[in-house]
């Protein structure tokens, strides 16, 4: 099949971007979206033009590197599917495909379709850790976790941090991501010591990055390639309200007692 791509091209963070029309010829319907871009890039390289920069890594839908906005929807038209797992059979011959980077102040464009998502790393660094015992290794089943907590924490941990939630939100809010990260540790016994300081620190980091607020649109959960539930936004709200009363300072003072 033959396609017409309208691709956002931008030299670097400071440059002015524009849409470029690129024809993709002889695309196999069995290709993934990224393989299609690989083929287009090979053609651009051979023609002496600069290839389209885009993020990718595992191509199995589990690393969170890839992600572009395809015809107005982050990760494209298939629900619960990352860009790398989206296959060209979901497009029609002759279709025009508009490809844009994830847009948010907190995700500045690095080049073309690549954006800098280190804002997420800083949110993780603010609270994505637990206190780990040292000394002798723990026994396998010394810490009991209920099936419900384990399953719910696993659901939250399915978040791959791709940023599609931010890209989809009309407010560019990161609440689904932060909700998933706060809940994933907050639901498990290992995450309890920092539960309240964690939510406080991660929300503060989120706000400092310039993400918007949650207006309960739920576009985030609709595009999430891992189907992370918006329930975790509710949990984030509840935990932050709890933290007003229960959070302790991060570093204990040296006073006795």
């Amino acid at each position, binding site marked *: 099949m033959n396609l017409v791509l309208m691709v956002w091209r931008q030299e670097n963070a400071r440059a002015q971007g524009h849409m470029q029309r690129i024809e993709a010829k002889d695309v196999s319907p069995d290709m993934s979206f990224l393989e299609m871009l690989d083929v287009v890039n090979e053609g651009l390289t051979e023609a002496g033009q600069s290839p389209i920069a885009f993020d990718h890594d595992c191509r199995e839908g589990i690393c969170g590197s890839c992600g572009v906005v395809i015809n107005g*929807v982050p990760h494209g038209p298939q629900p619960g599917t990352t860009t790398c797992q989206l296959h060209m059979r979901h497009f029609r011959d002759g279709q025009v495909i508009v490809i844009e980077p994830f847009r948010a102040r907190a995700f500045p464009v690095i080049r073309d379709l690549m954006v800098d998502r280190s804002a997420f790393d800083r949110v993780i660094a603010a609270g994505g850790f637990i206190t780990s015992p040292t000394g002798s290794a723990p026994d396998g089943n010394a810490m009991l976790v209920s099936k419900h907590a384990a399953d719910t924490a696993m659901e939250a941990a399915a978040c791959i941090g791709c940023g599609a939630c931010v890209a989809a939100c009309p407010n560019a809010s990161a609440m689904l991501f932060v909700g998933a990260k706060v809940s994933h540790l907050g639901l498990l016994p290992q995450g309890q010591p920092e539960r309240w300081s964690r939510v406080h620190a991660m929300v503060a980091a989120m*706000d400092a990055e310039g*993400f918007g607020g949650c207006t309960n649109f739920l576009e985030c959960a609709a595009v999430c390639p891992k189907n992370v539930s918006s329930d975790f936004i509710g949990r984030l709200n509840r935990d932050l309200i709890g933290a007003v009363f229960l959070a302790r300072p991060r570093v204990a003072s040296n006073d006795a007692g």
Partner: protein
Amino acid sequence: MFGLIPFFRSTIGKKVLMAVSGFFLFAFCVEHVTGALLFLRGPDAINGYGRLLHYSAALIWFFRAGLLTSAVVHVTFATLLYFQEFGARPVGYQNRRYLRSSYAARTMKYSGPFLLGFVIFHLAHLTWGYNVVPGPFIEGDIYANMLNGFRTGWVALVYLGAVSLLGLHLLHGAHSMFESLGLRHRRIESLLFGFARVATVVISVGLALAPAAVFFRIIGG
């Protein structure tokens, strides 16, 4: 604890304030429907209701202060959040498709300011008695003032338009306020959405009946 001030500085805290103030404004809307419906029963009913509300000056000013505070908080934080959200995506999309969000949700930031404008007009018309509509204003005779106003076609249409906008605002607001407080779970989602729909219909239809009845000359014809 890390205190209330930092909490209300956070985006989530601001949304909590929006939700709580929105809840009080919502509760007032419910109460207001009662008054508006009494108009349909005639002058004695609604004027008596008005006298009841004014029974205690302290009480009415207590409620007015609460309402005014809620409105100020709601508008102030809506403005703050609007600018935060506006700044959160400096470069927009060329092509955008929405999958899940409702029209009502996406237009909150537009329906809100219009409603604020209408509330000021409505107060000027029926509470302060400024001559914003043709015809005289009679202190204490709520029935006559409403009837007079709604007899002018454009006034009735402004009221009908405003209650439609209010309905749009509530269709999202009446469940969003619970969700912003953390009451969000797949088990209660349909309950909250159902509540919002019922509340929207009750409030907007309830408030629309009086101006509509006059506009179509069912009352005072």
